[in-house]
């Protein structure tokens, strides 16, 4: 038998506090900078740290934008978290410490708007779909209809992923039956990785993903009348501890260095 002394109870309390602190450490890091950033106004330097949650298809453009913005604002530190928009929505719903959220579709952004978790979204870019195949197009794929032929291993993103949803819309617009892909990948990056590794013959991603993959994949255009235009909205997460820098990030994306980074990576302008 042990005797729980007052010291024991105190130790338990301390220990539990430590556990709680460890669990919350990621959110603490962004709060440390809140006071300094709150004074920032338009034109002033952005400071503090920012967690940017962004759709996987934005990886290259947002990485470029981060470098530019950090160079312009020496006191600013940006951490990018790229994943399927649907995954990021789940994380933000469960309290992930995001300051800014950029989605590859309105549907996922709307989930957070409906729950009052983000401010008013602004559309900052558009994108088009393209078929991605191995270099040299060894299977001679020229259209959406070719993807479902036998002997073609064709993967798609899960319907919950914006790109997967758009791609299924494209099949519909082309008058084709709903596709039955070999695998439902969880974001565009893993879909295109299957082409790069050679385990799949074709997938559908954004034009910008094909560009970003360089010589490892080749794009096959989807005609305008079958294509689906992806709309990218961005919003400040209401729980942010650094609202000034978060808004500055959004402004720079809509009308500033971010706009150039997006265009350089092949994104279409918002209107």
């Amino acid at each position, binding site marked *: 038998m042990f005797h729980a002394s007052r010291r*024991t109870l105190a*130790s338990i309390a301390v220990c539990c506090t430590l556990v709680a602190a460890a669990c919350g450490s990621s959110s603490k890091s962004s709060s440390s900078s809140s006071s300094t950033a709150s004074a920032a106004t338009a034109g002033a330097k952005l400071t503090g740290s920012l967690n940017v949650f962004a759709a996987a298809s934005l990886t290259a453009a947002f990485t470029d934008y981060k470098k530019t913005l950090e160079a312009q604002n020496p006191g600013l530190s940006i951490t990018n978290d790229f994943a399927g928009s649907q*995954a990021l*929505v789940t994380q933000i719903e469960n309290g992930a410490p995001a300051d800014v959220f950029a989605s590859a579709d309105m549907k996922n952004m709307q989930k957070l708007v409906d729950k009052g978790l983000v401010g008013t979204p602004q559309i900052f870019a558009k994108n088009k779909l393209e078929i991605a195949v191995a270099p040299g197009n060894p299977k001679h794929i020229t259209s959406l209809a070719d993807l479902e032929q036998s002997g073609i291993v064709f993967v798609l993103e899960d319907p*919950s992923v914006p790109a997967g949803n758009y791609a299924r819309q494209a099949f519909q617009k082309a008058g084709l039956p709903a596709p039955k892909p*070999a695998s*439902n990948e969880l974001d565009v990056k893993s879909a295109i990785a299957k082409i790069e*590794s050679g385990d799949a013959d074709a997938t559908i991603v954004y034009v910008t993903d094909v560009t970003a993959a360089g010589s490892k994949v080749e794009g096959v255009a989807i005609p305008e009348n079958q294509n689906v235009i992806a709309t990218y909205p961005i919003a400040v997460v209401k729980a942010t501890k650094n609202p000034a820098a978060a808004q500055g990030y959004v402004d720079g994306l809509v009308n500033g260095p971010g706009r150039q980074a997006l265009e350089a990576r092949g994104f279409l302008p918002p209107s």
Partner: protein
Amino acid sequence: MATRTAPAARRTRPTTDRVPGVVIAGATCAVLFFAIPLLGLVWRAPWSAAWDVLSTPEARTALRLSIQTSLSATAIALVLGVPLAWVQARVAYPGRRVVRALVLLPMVLPPVVGGVALLLALGRHGLVGQYLDHVGVHLPFHFGGAVLAETFVAMPFLVLTVEAAFRSTDRRFEDAARTLGASRLSVFRRVTLPMIRPSLVAGALLCWARALGEFGATITFAGNAPGKTQTLPLFVYVTLEGANSDAAIILSLVLVAVSLAVLVALRDRWLTAL
């Protein structure tokens, strides 16, 4: 505390000294750390929707597929793992320690890395996979790929458990059988295997539970194909991100229940004999 046997009593005799407060505090935190996530699941569980979730075709498919793949993985692990365990326990050969490390590796390796390795080896353009492809064996995005991913990650649990059992059996029974004229294979089948049966069952159960829970290697190597490679853990992950987090929570609880059932089945081994 009632003790069943004298040796057990000697080993697990509760200390009568005062336990330092800081030790109790650490232990309490550790218990909370394990308990709170389970409470979180139970707390958020939409109990009223449970049956609806479990009766959707998607969930049924994932459940059925999980049972099929994990049982197949366990069967492969038994067929290949028992001979390996026997060799490791009984045969002294150069390189035995290297093989032992090789067997242990999947237990400590991040499963995603295992999946990447499998892809590079058995994928369509992989080291071995390119030849498999020629003869019409396709693993990524197919049932067989999910089974192999699970086998890779789970078989070490069986091999280690059974190997330990082979080491600790009394060789005299086997020697006696041999002197009475039984063939080597007959001795293995009728003397050795029956002697290690409890460990065989425990190893197979552990292996099966690990296979059932496999996620990282499966999604990396076999992809996420409903009805073919989308096992229960993948389904939980995908539905948690999609519209239906209720389904994810209910199916997580199903997996918790299965895991608890495995613990209960192994209770004599783990829950009392410590």
